[in-house]
Every structure is written in structure tokens, then in C-alpha cells.
């Protein structure tokens, strides 16, 4: 059975992940053509339901859907009845009545996309829920890594920053581990929860983390908006202790490490300005790859399938359930 929704990475099995990454490669080849659009989702409707601000993810999904010829509707939360006190559940009932084919949802509450998925017939794609999951970000990260390391098994990714509030850290580390990549966390003790998976080493000291010899350093945005209390004294201190400073960038360059970041970057906090010119920064690659990954996901969830290769979709064991 094909999946109806993409809600998390945790329940995806490896064959599904490999399939989506392969499909993304195929879709990316379209980008060099003069006409980038294919009719895979012609007649389908995609509703963009973003309760939280977003530039990259929102536009990436929109571009992906349009390149597959879907009709895209942007649900304007700020001008909807939500501002009149309508609950999410009432909104869902309204949306269900509209018979949209896909709902791409981002919300500050963990688990909410799953709730929408249970209450609608539409395919629901989680575009980020609270501090829970951001599956398409994880897929595009893995795709970006595989472009540099076609066989990423045994490679090491050091994720630095606000792990506690990061859905990216959860999804990306889960996915990379499924692909055989080693992952470690680095950050202030107040932002790297001790309850994370035991298989992920947890560092609070930059030098100790670098001694773990990562191949990629993956910086997370410090999410000041999610911090209800102070987790570290100030951003200047954060940059000094955990940020990629000019001197650390020199060390990273010497070691030939790649740098990734899901954006948007807090300049001078996670990364110094010079990173923008760093030849092994993969930040723009991540943005570009977001489109092909999201095309692959939208196509994958389409009942009946459209794009070539769909019938090669792996079957077999049930996805791992939490």
C-alpha cells in the first residue's frame, strides 16, 4: 500500500527513503531544461496551510507543486477565521469539505499534522510541527549529503545548536542514522536534552566535538522565539562558545569539512559572515534540493502514481512504528 501522508521520518523505512532520494535525482534533472514543468499532478489541488512563518519551505513546496502542474492554494492564516477564534479542528472540517488532494501543513504544535491527516481524506505533508518533525527538510539534507558522499555510510555529521527546540535535528538525525550516517549533537547543556537517543553522542564542548572528527558540521538556527526562559546568557557568548567563528572556520577549511544549515541563518550567531564565501558550504544546495525532494514526495503520495519509476516503489515490511 502506498502511503497517504508524510508525517515523520521515524516511521519511514529505509527503502522508502532510498526511493524518494532516487526520485529526487530524477526530478532534479528537469531543472536544467527550458521547460521545467511536467503534468504529473495535473488536476490535483495542493493547499498550503502555514500557521508559522516560512520562506524556504513554503516557496519550495509551492514551486514543487507548480512544477508538477498542481493547483496551489495558499491558505492565508492571518486573514482567515482563525483570527476570529476558529479552532484548528473547525478549519480542518472546512478544508475537508473543499476536497483538496494535498494539505501541506506547518504548525507550532507537535502532532497537529497527524491530527489533520486522521480527519481528512487529503494527503497531509508535515512541513514542520513544533519541535517534533520536519521530514522533507531531513530528506533534502540527506539528498544534499548524498550528492557529496554517494555512499554516506560511516560518515559523521555533527549537529550544532538548539537541539531541544529543533524539529530539524530530530528528523535529520533520525534519517541519517537510517542511512548509516553517524550523528552527534553539540550545544549548550540547556539546549541538548539528555533524553535524546542513546546512539547519538552529546557534546557540550566544541573541541571535544571536533575531536569526534565529523565530516559535516550542521548548524541549527538558534530559535529565540521558542525559548520561554533564557537558555544561555546572550548571543555573543553563544557565538563565542558554539558558533563558527573566523578562527573555527579556518580550522574547518583546513580539515575540508562541509557546512550545512537549514536556514534562515542568524549571522554572527551560528555562523560568521565569512561562511557565505566558504567553498564547502552546502547551504544553497540544500535550498535547491528542497524543490526536487518535495516534488518526489508530492508525486509519491499521489494515489495511482504518475511519475516514471513509481511502480518501482518498494514493497515489503511494514514501516517501523514508534
Amino acid at each position: 500500500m502506498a502511503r497517504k501522508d508524510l508525517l515523520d521520518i521515524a516511521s519511514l523505512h529505509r527503502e522508502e527513503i532510498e526511493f524518494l532520494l532516487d526520485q529526487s535525482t530524477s526530478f532534479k534533472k528537469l531543472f536544467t531544461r527550458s521547460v521545467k514543468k511536467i503534468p504529473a499532478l495535473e488536476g490535483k489541488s495542493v493547499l498550503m496551510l502555514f500557521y508559522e512563518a516560512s520562506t524556504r519551505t513554503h516557496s519550495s513546496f509551492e514551486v514543487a507543486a507548480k512544477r508538477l502542474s498542481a493547483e496551489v492554494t495558499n491558505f492565508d492564516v492571518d486573514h482567515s477565521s482563525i483570527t476570529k477564534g476558529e479552532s484548528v479542528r473547525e478549519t480542518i472540517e472546512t478544508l475537508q469539505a473543499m476536497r483538496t488532494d494535498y494539505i501541506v501543513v506547518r504548525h507550532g504544535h507537535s502532532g497537529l499534522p497527524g491530527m489533520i491527516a486522521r480527519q481528512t481524506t487529503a494527503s497531509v505533508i508535515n512541513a514542520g510541527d513544533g519541535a517534533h518533525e520536519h521530514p522533507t527538510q531531513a530528506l533534502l539534507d540527506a539528498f544534499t549529503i548524498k550528492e557529496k558522499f554517494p555512499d554516506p555510510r560511516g560518515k559523521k555529521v555533527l549537529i550544532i545548536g538548539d537541539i531541544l527546540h529543533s524539529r530539524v535535528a530530530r528528523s535529520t538525525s533520525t534519517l541519517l542514522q537510517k542511512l548509516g550516517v553517524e550523528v552527534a549533537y553539540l550545544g549548550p547543556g540547556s539546549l541538548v536534552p539528555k533524553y535524546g537517543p542513546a546512539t547519538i553522542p552529546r557534546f557540550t564542548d566544541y573541541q571535544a566535538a571536533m575531536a569526534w572528527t565529523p565530516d559535516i558540521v550542521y548548524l541549527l538556527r538558534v530559535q529565540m522565539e521558542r525559548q520561554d526562559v533564557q537558555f544561555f546568557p546572550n548571543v555573543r557568548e553563544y557565538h563565542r562558545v558554539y558558533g563558527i567563528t573566523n578562527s573555527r572556520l579556518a580550522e574547518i577549511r583546513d580539515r575540508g569539512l562541509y557546512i550545512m544549515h537549514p536556514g534562515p541563518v542568524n549571522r554572527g550567531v551560528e555562523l560568521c559572515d565569512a561562511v557565505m564565501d566558504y567553498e564547502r558550504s552546502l547551504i544553497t544546495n540544500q535550498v535547491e534540493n528542497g524543490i526536487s525532494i518535495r516534488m518526489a514526495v508530492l508525486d509519491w503520495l499521489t494515489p495511482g502514481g504518475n511519475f516514471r519509476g513509481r511502480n518501482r516503489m518498494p514493497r515489503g515490511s511494514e514501516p517501523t512504528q514508534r
Partner: protein
Amino acid sequence: MLFLQNARIASENSPVLLESDVLIVEGIIQDIGSNLAIPKGARVIDARGRVLMPAMFDAHVHFRAPGFENKETITTGSEAAINGGITGVVMMPNTRPALDSATSVATVLDNAKRKARIPVYTSGCVTKDRQGKELAEIEGMRTLGVKMLTDDGDTTSDPAVLLRAMQYATEFGMFFASHCEVPELAGPRALNEGVMSYRLGIKGSPTCAEEIIIDRDIRLARAAGAHVHIQHVSSKLGMETIRWWKSRGDVKVTAEVAPHHLMFTDEHIGDYDTNYKMNPPLRTQADCDALLEGLIEGVFDLIATDHAPHTPFEKAQDFVTAPNGITGLDTALVSLYHHFVEPGKFGWDLVVKRYSAEPRRLMGLPVPTIEVGQQAECVLFDTEAETTFTREFMKSKSQNTPFIDQTLKGRVDLVILGPEILLER
């Protein structure tokens, strides 16, 4: 006249169930013994194999009236209690308006007299509108019989306010019930801080949020010479804190545990199931094990459900938005039997002691027993039958319980209160 033939009688004082006939005349137990002659005109109930026990009493329920009658009313709440084998309850004061004055308490008690078939008592607030600032109308509420003071889900945050309240109200023979939580540590989401909260991406509540207030409130009670009752303990270290204070013997402490904290862990939340969202939150198996140990040992004087009804609409929201709490009255006795008595973890004597006798002692009420000369206030329980907790079965207005549509071993067959049969299956 009611003649219960061959019932197995449970009491708090003996683990042995003695098989006897019991004759009840005009609500009073007239005779108990083997092979009693059946009086003429008596209604005979064959109770062979079934357990006859004193009816339960729940010292921690939310009946939501006034203010939230869409969730529960005194009528539906008390019917849920009867459905579960319970013949007396103590309401919490977090209604709207809050029960912080003689006027509001009088209204509730008047309603209860008219609308409930069982005695419904209420606690009163420590502070006005549970705001933790000004003392509530404590003496006025006492004149109406209020004994328990609590700001319920809102821990009285200022220790000076609570200390003064304790010093003041202890003079009137009142005691304090504490919902133990440092809100700044606990956050609003009612999920244990641990592997599960990390996995679900929701801010967790560490057990220290509970432990700190348990310790604080007992220390305040000691300083004031007051009696403090610690409500719905959820953590191992919370239990051990109470045990330690009780072992010192220089402060009057009682404590309760809720059935759900004995039976479920945060793992049960699974895919954001809001029927497992409650405050204090479900914790780990190690905590459950410690709470059971504390119950058997007597660290917990009583079992109370924290019956907390919410409408289906509210609970159908996402986990973060949905309100805390589950209903407990309809399911309490059967679930305790299914999870603990039937598997042999504790006996009927513990159920009677902790869920019938001690809660009434806490409230200064007479304790029903199955003895000649006593008023009949008892439950006949079938240990072989099963109960399926369908929505139709529940008498609570809300059905936010993890047991919904589950079938458990045991069934409440008969509930008697004096001359009235409140329930018969």
C-alpha cells in the same frame, strides 16, 4: 428487606473474604451469618462468588458545576460515581465562579442535595479565585461543612500566603490539599520530561516540579502545625519524599494516588493520544512501580481518581491544545480490580481501606462496614464478569478516558445506600 445469599465479605481489616448471608432491613444490616433463614417477604439476591464490600468514597473529583456544565453536572457526575461503586465524593473548587466563599459553596451544596443521589461534599479555595493572593472566605465556608482547602490545579505559589492560610484555618479544624507543581518548571503541556517528550517534541515536566512542592508544602504544614494532604502523586521521588516526612512523625501528612498513575506510563501516549494527557503527567514504569509500593506500604492513605471530564470536542484537539485530565469514576473500581486485585498485586482489604475507609476518615465522616447494626452502604462486585466501557455504559457526561471501549475483568452489580438500591445490573 434484602437478603444477600452467600456473599464474600470484604473489609479493610482482613485479607480473608468470609462467605456469609447478609440481611438488610430498611437500610440497616440486621444479620450476618452462614445459612441464615430467609425472612418472609425478603428479596433474595444470589451473591455466590461475588464480593460485598463497603462502598467507595472519592476525595478528588471535578463536577464542573457551576460554570462548565457542558462537561459535567452534579447529577451526571454523581451518577458516574454510582456507576463505579462510589457513594460519596469531594468536589474540587475550580468551578466558575471558584468556590471561594460561603455563597458559592452554599449554592453548590444546595444543588447537590437536590440533584445527587449520593452525598456530594466540596472543598473550598485557599485564596480568592485561586489567584494565590488574598485569602478566600475560609471561616464562612467552614460553617457550611467545608474541611478541605485547596487552590486545586493552581498551586498556591507564594509560600507566605499558604503559611498564613494554614496558620489561620488550622484553628478551625480544616486541612490543606496540595496539587504539587512548580508551573515555571512544569510548562503547560502535561507530559513527563523524558524520552517520550523528546520524541514527541513537546516540552516535558520534570518530576522535580512535583517533588519541590511536596517538600515545600509539608515543611509549611510543619511550621504552621497544619495537616496537609498531598494530591495525586505521580513520581517515585515524590512518594519517597512523603515517606520520609511521615517517618519523622512531626507533621500531619496524608497523601493520595490516582489509579491512572498506577496503571499507565508516558509510553501510552503513543501517537499523541489526548486520553492520556493529564496533570500531573503519566511518568515511567519505575514511577508506577514506586507508587504501587507506596500504596501497599501506606505512604498513600487513599486512592482518588481526580475525575476530570472534558468534552469530546476539547479532547479531539491536538495534544498541545487539548485540556488536561481524564474521567475516572465510571472505571475506577473495575480498573483497580483488573490491574491489581485479580493479578494478586494487592487484596480487597487494601481496596476497602484505601478507597472506602481512609478517604472518609480524611473528611471526618463515618466509615461504613459490613457489620450488624450498620447502615448498608455497600457494593456487590462480580469478579468473574466483565465490563466493557462503551460510551453508553458511562454515566459521566464526558468520556475522556483511556478505557473507552476496553473490556476489563470485574463488574459492579449492585450499589446500596441505606434503604435505596442506587444501581443494579
